[in-house]
């Protein structure tokens, strides 16, 4: 008899992980929660339950409840013992977005973060930060690739985005702020 792996033999954990990879960000449906760095871990408990640990992007993100519901819904085939746990620390950072996520964002028309934030310790102190406030990130237009862009507003359609305008193709676009 063949010993090839069948669906039956896939562990619950592997199945949970596979299913979870299909859950997308409710605000940006082209990227998965995993690619966004929102899923921090998937664990199988001693009693066979599956525990998913997620972290909010922004503390007031209204999508978090939707994200929890979506995770529960997609894991429903695995039975009732599904827990979704929210973990605040370490705080989410755009540095956790995968390069795939960044490419998908760009293709979707959202410019990905143009710089790395680094750890909290690596960020400028507040006293320095405010003196640097006039420095605006250089962002390439996700539509035409031009570097000739200007910031129109710090806050875009969601807290995580700023509103930019391309001076070459004249199109406005969202910029996912380094966070």
């Amino acid at each position, binding site marked *: 008899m063949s010993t090839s792996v069948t669906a039956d033999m896939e562990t619950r954990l592997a199945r949970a992980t596979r299913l979870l990879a299909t859950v997308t960000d409710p605000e940006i449906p082209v990227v998965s929660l995993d690619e966004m760095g929102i899923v921090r871990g998937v664990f199988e408990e001693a009693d066979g339950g599956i525990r998913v640990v997620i972290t909010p992007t922004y503390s007031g993100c209204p999508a978090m409840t939707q994200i929890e519901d979506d995770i529960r819904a997609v894991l429903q085939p695995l039975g009732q013992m599904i827990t979704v746990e929210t973990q*605040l*620390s370490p705080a989410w950072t755009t540095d956790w977005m995968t390069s795939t996520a960044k490419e998908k964002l760009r293709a979707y028309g959202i410019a990905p973060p143009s710089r790395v934030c680094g750890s909290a310790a690596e960020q400028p102190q507040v006293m320095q*930060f405010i003196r640097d406030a006039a420095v605006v990130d250089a962002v390439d237009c996700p539509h035409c690739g031009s570097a000739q862009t200007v910031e*129109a507003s*710090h*806050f875009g359609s969601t*807290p995580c985005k700023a509103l930019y305008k391309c001076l070459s193709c004249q199109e406005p676009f969202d910029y996912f702020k380094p966070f």
Partner: protein
Amino acid sequence: MAAVDYWLHLADNALVLGQRNAEWCGHGPILEEDIAMTNNSLDLIGQARMLYQVAAARLDDGSTEDSLAYFRDPQAFKNLTLLELPHHGPLVGYAVDNRDYAVTIVRNFLYSALMALVWERLQASKDADMAAIAAKSLKETRYHLRHAHDWLIRFGDGTEVSAQRAQAALDYLLPFTQEFWSAAPYEQAAVDAGLAIDVRSLQADWDQLVAHTLEVAKLRFSPRTGYQTQGKLGQHSEHLSYLLGEMQSLARAHPEGVW
């Protein structure tokens, strides 16, 4: 008990300003600012939720984040008085048309300058929940501070009218910042417990930070004298009860309602 009051103080600050700034939702002076202020409120209410959740767990008396937000009366709120004031200067009617965006921006600037410094230091709190919330909130508060800083410069170094209104807002609001630096008994207890930082130790940095922006904005650091408000002790202006009345009415009309 004292330590819980410190959590409530921080949570009430965020909730009350979040609710106040949300008044601009759909009424912003320009579309971009309408969106910016609504995002600002969303962050503040998110911060308030995280803080209330911890406070409710620590109280362990059946309190929830909702009961703390919706079923406490004004005297129980420990927010800074500055944060409950309407979006206009003194002696002006309540009409929406009387809202002054200069008051909104100046208040956001004074408060986010304080909180950026507070959250920065609270990342080292001995309380793991506080340190986690501080690290998260600091990122958001830096964006709020930058937003207010940029607008203050645009106002101060803008037209004659914008500079005059920004200066009037500073003259009106700066005296309320005296309250920042008087530690309430529960703050001192929280400092002693390693939960909080002594807010008075931040005043020199805050003064320097504010002075820097005002200088770039060509505005004056007006005097901080006169009556010192006591919101953090639960003694509020008449404005808080109206704000809470609006915010709490739905939850109180349908207690424990879900949808």
